[in-house]
């Protein structure tokens, strides 16, 4: 699988947010996107998901332009900006409701993901009672639980304790070996520098490749 971003530019009310972005995401790799807050990372990720239309250029998933076809990419899951769930339901109930939409997985897979993220003890707590870190973990859980081919995570390690961050990094490396395309965006380069194969920096309106010093 391959995602090609070709000459993509984005303007909002004549304000240029991104200009002439070119990048190809291939399976079995982790891609890092870094840039300060407001640099256009989230806008770029929303275009990858098909929520925003590029002002010019195109985004192709295996040659298919989802935006042109007025649909969203299949087998892609994302966490963009802060996680948001139904506050009166428990963490587990929220994931169960989302999983029921496509019916790909059941209770077992949901609990497994929650265990990996050390959320199993809190899965029966209401989302409104969750701490910032727990909310973030639940957001990551909804991305991972259905084993998607493409995973897009914006500031994935926000508020999560170091131990779990390390485990998550290892998990993402495992997923990479299984042929997934993983796109991680953050404003702190060190968060992801250890695990990414390619790193891109959002600077002004452009996105440039950064060399990795491992």
């Amino acid at each position: 699988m391959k995602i090609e971003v070709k000459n993509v530019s984005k303007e909002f009310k004549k304000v240029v947010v991104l200009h002439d972005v070119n990048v190809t995401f291939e399976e079995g790799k982790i891609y890092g996107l870094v840039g300060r807050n407001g640099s256009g990372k989230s806008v770029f990720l929303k275009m990858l998901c098909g929520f925003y239309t590029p002002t010019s250029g195109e985004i192709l998933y295996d040659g298919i332009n989802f935006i042109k076809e007025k649909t969203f990419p299949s087998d892609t899951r994302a966490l963009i900006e802060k996680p948001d769930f139904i506050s009166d339901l428990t963490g587990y109930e929220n994931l169960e409701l989302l999983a029921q939409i496509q019916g790909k997985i059941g209770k077992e897979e949901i609990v497994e993901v929650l265990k990996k993220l050390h959320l199993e003890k809190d899965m029966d707590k209401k989302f409104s009672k969750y701490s910032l870190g727990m909310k973030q973990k639940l957001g990551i859980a909804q991305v991972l639980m259905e084993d998607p081919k493409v995973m897009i995570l914006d500031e994935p390690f926000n508020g999560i304790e170091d131990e779990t961050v390390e485990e998550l990094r290892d998990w993402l490396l495992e997923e990479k070996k299984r042929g997934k395309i993983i796109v991680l965006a953050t404003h702190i380069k060190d968060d992801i520098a250890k695990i990414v194969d390619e790193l891109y920096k959002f600077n002004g309106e452009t996105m440039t490749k950064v060399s990795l010093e491992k």
Partner: protein
Amino acid sequence: MRYVLKKDFAQFFKKNSKLVAGIFVVLLFYSIYAKYNYDSTKQVFVAILGLYMDKNSFSADMVVFFFHIVVFIYIVLYLFFSMFRGNIENLFLRLPMKKWFFYKQISIFLVTILLKSSFYIIFSIISGYFDFFHVLSYFCIDVIFVITIQELLMFLLFLFYKNKVFFLLSSLFLIGIFLIFHFPLMVLKIQKQYFFVAVYAVFAFLFFFINGVFAKKSSMHLFEGSR
């Protein structure tokens, strides 16, 4: 569908509980006013529900009529935009836009029915008007009318995000149609105008399908417009 319904019901009634209570309080106060101004229980009942208007109608009746419309327009606006707040990716990477729109319609319909039926039960008791078949007939006509207005509003919302000029022209045209046809209909007493009610129902279905097409074709306009 369960996700859309649960999210809408949880959000709407939790975040608008004070507002819903306030609506009932306003109508309760108006019921006292109506009891003093009208002779029959039937008149009191239809006046509280904003359906009473004749040539000698009080201006307060007109205020209540618009109050009811504003309440149900608010429901559409609130529920329609609720999904664009927060994580759109949770839902829309799992559910096609067309299906989402269909589920959203059901959700808006159910919230509308729930509130309307609460109004009818409570104000039937308060006004002392218990003619079941008349109450049911008012209820059906009222729901069809409200749903037509809601579908029209959604149509205008799609236009607003797609083309502002076309939105403005269509809004003026539809408001004009409403003032020319609906008000005389109300004056002639709504419960006898089955032909017009059927026309409303046809319009509601028509706009339902047009909105469904718009939802699929202009999802990006909605996402970008709501940012």
